[in-house]
């Protein structure tokens, strides 16, 4: 047990939790933005898978993780465009449409992988960036400031999205459209444009989440995300549609997973309890979700297609 509280293990565990939280955070932030505009997207996992494959493939061909990440974002935005057309223009039922996107992404990413790559080949992962001065702070430095670029980007997006939603006209429009699209429409703001942009940005982040996963791991495999996208949706509810709340949820999920992993590695968690312990992140997140979610109301127009005059 004492081993667990050694500095080295603590640093490794916290750093591991942050890495594990990153894909969830990116996907959840994107989903939160879409939901704040009133659009539910259950297809996050499918978009993540497509983003992961495209990023993997681009890095495999170019050797450049940054171009791969950009390709993942772009792919996600294309999916966002399609999803926006389906839900905003065609007024399709959002739950079913999202599941359709998920299944498409699951199947298509694997098909493309089999046809274009075949045997999984490793790619160059993001290099670790040690932030000058900050990385040298004892304990905190190695925990927080020795990650890859994508980790820093994900966590910097949290205050950026908070500012965007709370301190800009565009953010106010997103929130208003998610609450009362008819009222916003009557003021001359295009509900269609606002929702389109929120969905496209959100899906772009889902694509980046998938790209981050593939590039960090340096590999692609069938169903690489292992349903992370669905957990990301749950984390949006946990975080009450607020960027910092979403970040807290992602970190709890990642940290619990990291603690369990380290506990098992050190033998603190016995092998007989291994499978039970593996469920801990999900169980604790659901428990926290039940405690937190009821305190906040979801956007009033969430998952309701808007048609002027109806």
């Amino acid at each position: 047990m004492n081993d667990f509280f050694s500095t080295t293990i603590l640093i490794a565990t916290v750093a591991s939790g942050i890495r594990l939280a990153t894909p969830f955070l990116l996907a959840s932030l994107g989903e939160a933005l879409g939901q704040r505009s009133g659009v539910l997207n259950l297809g996050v996992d499918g978009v993540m898978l497509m983003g992961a494959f495209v990023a993997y493939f681009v890095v495999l061909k170019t050797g450049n993780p940054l171009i791969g990440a950009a390709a993942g974002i772009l792919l996600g935005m294309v999916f966002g465009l399609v999803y926006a057309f389906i839900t905003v223009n065609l007024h399709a039922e959002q739950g079913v449409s999202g599941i359709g996107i998920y299944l498409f992404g699951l199947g298509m990413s694997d098909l493309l992988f089999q046809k274009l790559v075949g045997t999984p080949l490793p790619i160059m992962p993001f290099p670790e960036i040690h932030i000058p001065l900050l990385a040298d702070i004892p304990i905190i430095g190695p925990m927080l400031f020795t990650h890859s670029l994508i980790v820093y980007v994900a966590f910097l997006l949290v205050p950026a999205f908070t500012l965007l939603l709370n301190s800009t006209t565009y953010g106010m429009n997103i929130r208003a459209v998610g609450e009362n699209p008819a009222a916003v429409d009557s003021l001359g703001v295009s509900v269609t444009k606002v929702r389109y942009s929120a969905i496209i940005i959100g899906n772009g982040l889902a694509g980046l989440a998938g790209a981050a996963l593939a590039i960090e791991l340096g590999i692609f495999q069938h169903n690489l995300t292992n349903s992370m996208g669905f957990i990301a949706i749950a984390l949006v509810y946990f975080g009450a549609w607020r960027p910092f709340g979403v970040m807290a949820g992602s970190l709890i999920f990642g940290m619990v997973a990291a603690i369990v992993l380290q506990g098992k590695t050190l033998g603190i968690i016995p092998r007989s309890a291994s499978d039970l312990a593996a469920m801990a992140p999900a169980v604790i997140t659901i428990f926290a979700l039940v405690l937190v979610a009821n305190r906040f109301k979801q956007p009033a127009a969430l998952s309701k297609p808007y048609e002027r005059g109806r």
Partner: protein
Amino acid sequence: MNPVRTLKKALIAAATVALCLSSGNLFAAGKVLKVAIIAPSASNDLAFTQSIVEGINAIKAERELDVAITDGTFVVEDAAAAIRDYAAKGYDLVIAHGSQYGGSLKEIAKDFPKTAFAWGTSADTFGMPNVSSYEAHSEEGGYVMGMMAAALSKSGSIGVVGPIEVGDAKLYVDGFVAGAKAQKADIKTNVNYIGSFSDVALAAEAARAHLAVGSDVLTGTAQMVVGAVGVAKTKKAAWFGTQANQTVLAPEIVVACQVYKWEVILKQILADMDQGVLGGKKYAISLANNGLVIEFNDKYELPADVKTIGMDAITAIKEGKITVLK
């Protein structure tokens, strides 16, 4: 109509039928057998599924077969639907390649008594005449790898990334730990079952956790270890693989891999089918029958004495001088 000629023809026909039946040859010579494989992950996963695909391809090089493969069926219900579908379509042999498929197979096999089913890894045929089981004595290769890993480790600590503590994964891990202890009694072997066959990200973090506690040699089993290999590569920790040859993932750190040669038992299953035996038998691959082969990575500079330890262990196991996991 000449009654003598008709009688002759009838006798020849009867003799032919009797000959076939007496030899139990239900799958007459010349018939191309239809074989279906249902497997959990991708056909090129560099692990469990790839091993059976390579096995059937090896058989296809020797005899004509009509092979269909449904991979990526991590969801058991999907696999069950595929198993039933192939049986209904008249496939002669349906292979359910995953210990998680046993429950479904038991139900489905009852409905198709003329279809041969095989499943693994398991030693349970459910007492059914058309169900065979197969397993891999992966503990044997695990033991060999464990011995070499212990000899190679400078830190005295080895990390193991496992999926769920079942089937050949458990056997491999147990064999590996036993081998490591046999080589160095005081070696530290940290075993981490992550609780998933498919979570690549978690497997990668498990490898990082091992490295954080000082392990300099890692191993792992099942499809999700590709993530762990990537981490080992980044940190230049040595890697021992199993199920398929994983050298392509990281030629600079992969020391050796235990490769499953399922063709050894597939050949036996098909030969038994040729004799009219549809099931009820248990098959196994091992070092002794060359169903398990240790493939060394030539690009890895393995010290000669460590390789000798491995080679000696292989010989001893084959000759029955070492019994792994008594």
